[in-house]
């Protein structure tokens, strides 16, 4: 049985047996290349079908072209906008905002999630407040945030941090609660200290919760970003879409939507999925998520 050189193939890893549990750090670009090399048809075919249907619908001329444009037109707009440097700059702006907001949100969410999940008193105190604020959706914060911080990056960041944090906390608490009692008993009867139990039982045991929380949190954060950019943005993908609408430029609205979808797909395929594959899926804690 050959040892896998660089492909993170699941079957290969299992058969090889002697692969160390710590994965080799592959850069996103290499992962993208590997993804396309491994399953180009499986990855691209569903999108080809969607684009095909889209092309047919637009070619049939059911909707006037000022409302609904075909993939070719959208592609032209995209190329044009890339050539003028607008789209890359806007994508960079959006991603930077998301990265900053998500980094703070993940940091705060993970820390609070473990604190609330592990400490009875903190949980009792925080849980009602948590549920209360969970009900105030991201956009509901925009009016007050704009008053406080103006039309600034701070406002956008605050909203993203807020949206990322809450689902993450709730998901981590649920993940910690789902750790089987007997695993904690086993650790205790093997003489594990509190810190060892935290690092070697609670943290890995809560990873399914962390990973689903990160998914939900980033998904919400991404949407919140677009909403924030529409309302307070001066640049970014959300701003581009809303600006295009103002000028009656449907094809750029479509470009924005396509960009959102592609970016999220890439976030999943290049960051989230590989991490899950090496941890919670590898350990048999969760089935493969949607793949």
């Amino acid at each position: 049985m050959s040892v896998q050189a660089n492909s993170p193939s699941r079957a290969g890893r299992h058969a090889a047996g002697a692969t160390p549990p710590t994965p080799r750090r592959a850069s996103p670009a290499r992962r993208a290349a590997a993804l396309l090399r491994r399953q180009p048809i499986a990855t691209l075919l569903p999108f080809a079908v969607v684009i095909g249907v889209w092309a047919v619908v637009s070619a049939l001329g059911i909707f006037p072209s000022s409302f609904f444009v075909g993939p070719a037109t959208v592609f032209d707009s995209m190329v044009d906008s890339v050539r003028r440097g607008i789209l890359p700059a806007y994508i960079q702006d959006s991603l930077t905002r998301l990265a900053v907001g998500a980094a703070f949100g993940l940091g705060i969410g993970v820390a609070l999630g473990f604190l609330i999940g592990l400490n009875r008193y903190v949980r009792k105190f925080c849980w009602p407040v948590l549920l209360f604020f969970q009900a105030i959706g991201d956009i509901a914060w925009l009016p007050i945030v704009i008053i406080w911080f103006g039309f600034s990056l701070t406002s956008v960041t605050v909203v993203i941090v807020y949206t990322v944090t809450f689902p993450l906390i709730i998901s981590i608490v649920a993940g910690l609660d789902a750790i089987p009692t007997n695993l904690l008993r086993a650790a205790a009867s093997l003489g594990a200290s509190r810190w060892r139990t935290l690092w070697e039982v609670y943290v890995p045991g809560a990873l399914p919760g962390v990973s689903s929380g990160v998914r939900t949190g980033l998904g919400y954060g991404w949407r919140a970003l677009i909403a924030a950019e529409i309302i307070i943005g001066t640049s970014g993908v959300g701003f581009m879409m809303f600006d295009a609408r103002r000028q009656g430029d449907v094809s750029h609205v479509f470009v924005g939507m396509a960009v959102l979808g592609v970016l999220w797909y890439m976030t999943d395929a290049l960051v989230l999925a590989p991490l899950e594959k090496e941890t919670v899926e590898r350990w048999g804690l969760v089935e493969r998520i949607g793949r």
Partner: protein
Amino acid sequence: MTMLSVDQLNQVYVDTYTGEATVAIEDVSFDVPEGQFVSVIGPSGCGKTTVLNIVAGFVDATGGTVRLQGSPVSGPGPDRGVVFQDFALFPWKTVEANIAFGLKTQGVGKVERRAKAQEMIDLVGLTGFEKKYPHELSGGMRQRAGVARVLATEPAIMLMDEPFASVDAQTRRVLQQEVLRIWEQRRTTVLFVTHDVDEAVFMSDRVVVLSPRPSTVRADLSIQIPRPRSWTDMHTNTEFVRIRRELMTMLGVETGVETGSRSAP
């Protein structure tokens, strides 16, 4: 020398919904001498697992004391290794890392840890599966790892809570013999909880029989079947057949009496 001494154990539960108090364990006392293999059996719901959980330190008793080598125990500790019915292996650790975990908590160095873990892996017959994760193993293999994890730290006593209840019947017979083979090599003191009369008689030096809830010790039988024992000649062994019949009658298996409720935690 007495390794474990359970003295006038008493356990009362208060139902969180009805507020009703239930006496799970009325009064249970027994001793386990060093090196002995003692089983606790009883009808389902009699609180035998609760007795084990109290000895392990997972559950606080309402009354009575548990002494290990003369000193009272409270809370779980590495002197009492536990083999769980659901294995309770850490899913995120390989077989080797699971087995070495107890050594790690004791501060044993990496090289020594690995050597000791390997010795245990070989002892329980998991050679070649060191780098597998628990979900990649069969139930029987997982429990081998569970036993190895406990034995690696050389506890004063090994507590086994229906350890073979989650594996299929054939594997169970094999594991019972395997555990006896390992036990005969190491002579660790064992407290073994089971609802399976055959298993109790086959494995043990002594069987402590608990009554239905609220439980008391109903009988304490010594089993004089020579070791090594094997299943192939057990059903023609007159001693095995005699004790088995006695226990069956005691537990009401013959008359079809069944108390029904699931055993308490």
